[in-house]
């Protein structure tokens, strides 16, 4: 693991949906080459955290530093162009576009992104479905497409929101292998997951989120020792 300065450094992040105060001071960091997972129950603030980082949630205070640059005052498109790639929970495949158009949609923001051949090597199914309408893909294929299109952009910091939700176990394993491969290639990943068993196969560290705050953190090597606490936090 690389112990350099954090790629992402979040300090006292608070956020609001209208009048609703959803994040109450998030503090965490993601170091280069790590896979960090935000764990927590439904409504804990995990997805809101990702949306606050990318700037979709407009009202935010605190500090979000990406590669040393403060993101709090930047609009969404500028944050994305700095190299923050976001894969939303609902996957966001555009029904108006076919698979190829979906795949090529996000603009290249820096060099070094995956080529189409590299993407098809990682996701062979997509090559066969290039002409299909985006909405006609299965859940697993849509998830692969959602991840594949951000890999093209050259962004090396990925935020994946519940990539395994609603997917069959065989697809979940495939996604796990894909994340492990991306980690081996030096990507830095911030993962939101409710499925901590899946997360334990890929993550280096965990942060537990509750009521919009970090309440605990531990390394993957400490997972077994913290299993009791985790069951309490997650209610499983």
């Amino acid at each position, binding site marked *: 693991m690389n112990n350099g300065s954090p790629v992402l450094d979040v300090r006292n992040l608070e956020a609001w949906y209208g009048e609703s105060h959803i994040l109450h001071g998030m503090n965490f960091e993601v170091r280069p080459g790590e896979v960090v997972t935000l764990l927590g129950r439904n409504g804990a603030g995990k997805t809101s955290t990702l949306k606050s980082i990318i700037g979709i949630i407009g009202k935010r205070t605190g500090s979000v530093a990406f590669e040393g640059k403060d993101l709090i005052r930047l609009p969404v498109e500028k944050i994305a162009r700095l190299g923050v790639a976001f894969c939303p929970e609902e996957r966001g495949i555009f029904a108006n*576009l076919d698979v190829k158009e979906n795949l090529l949609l996000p603009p290249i923001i820096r060099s070094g992104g995956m080529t189409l051949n590299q993407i098809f090597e990682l996701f062979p199914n997509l090559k066969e479905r290039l002409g299909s309408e985006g909405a006609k893909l299965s859940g697993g294929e849509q998830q692969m497409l959602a991840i594949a299109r951000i890999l093209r952009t050259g962004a090396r910091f990925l935020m994946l929101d519940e990539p395994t939700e609603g997917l069959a176990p065989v697809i979940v394993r495939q996604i796990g292998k894909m994340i492990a491969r991306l980690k081996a290639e030096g990507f830095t990943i911030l993962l939101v997951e409710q499925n901590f068993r899946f997360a334990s196969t890929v993550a280096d560290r965990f942060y537990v989120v509750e009521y919009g705050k970090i309440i605990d953190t531990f390394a993957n090597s400490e997972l077994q020792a913290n299993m009791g606490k985790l069951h309490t936090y997650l209610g499983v």
Partner: protein
Amino acid sequence: MHQALYAQLLVGLINGSFYALLSLGLAVIFGMLNIINFAHGALYMMGAFVAYFLLNLAGINYWWALILTPVIVGAFGILLERTTLQWLTGLDHLYGMLLTFGMALMIQGVFQYFFGSSGLPYAIPNLLKGGVDLGFMYLPIYRGWVVIFSLVICIATWYLIERTRLGAYLRAATENPTLVRAFGVNVPRMITLTYGLGVGLAALAGVLSAPINQVRPLMGADLIIVVFAVVVIGGMGSIMGSIITGFALGVIEGLTKYFYPEASNAVVFVLMVLVLLVKPTGLAGRSN
């Protein structure tokens, strides 16, 4: 008798050209901004007047007007969007309709105040004067030009939206503008430019119309209701639906004028009601 039929067919095709260009602009604006742009007829009228001013005040001929007028009126449209329409993002369609309806009345009112209700002449350019005897009918060259040029513009716009990367951004942003922004695309700027494009298409139709119809403040008001019917029949937001329906309805209207003139004003609306009863999203529209 056949000459009269072909003549009405030609009139139908010409009207269809205007319907197609105008409904295309409306479809583009509705698709991107979710705004039902009642000012579209007034902007078409502005296009005709700008062409008139360019010729009579600046000596700028028809050919340059075809390029400059959409840019000038498009820029005016962008100003409207930035100062008024952008504040309606996310609100019910009713607000956009009311605002643009008010804008249409204001724009028409200003032009009526200065120019009255009677029309101003705009000459056909020399290159397009005269006609061609096709045997079965006499085809005025300018009218043939209107039909062909409109078709080219419609196909080019369809290609831009359906087959290019920019068009993919536009289509994606109609579904999920937030996610498209999260990819790094400046969606607000794209929306503004798209409104300008839609307005530019209306203005271009105005320039084409100027030599055929007199340049009048109410020329847009006469047309806009039919154009809305075209958009509804073709499918709100459907580019190809608007193009095909525009031309088709122009021809149907022309043929109705020949075979049953009493129904020619109503035929478009009868078809609109039938389509709404059978397929409310329009012939090529998608249900959301």
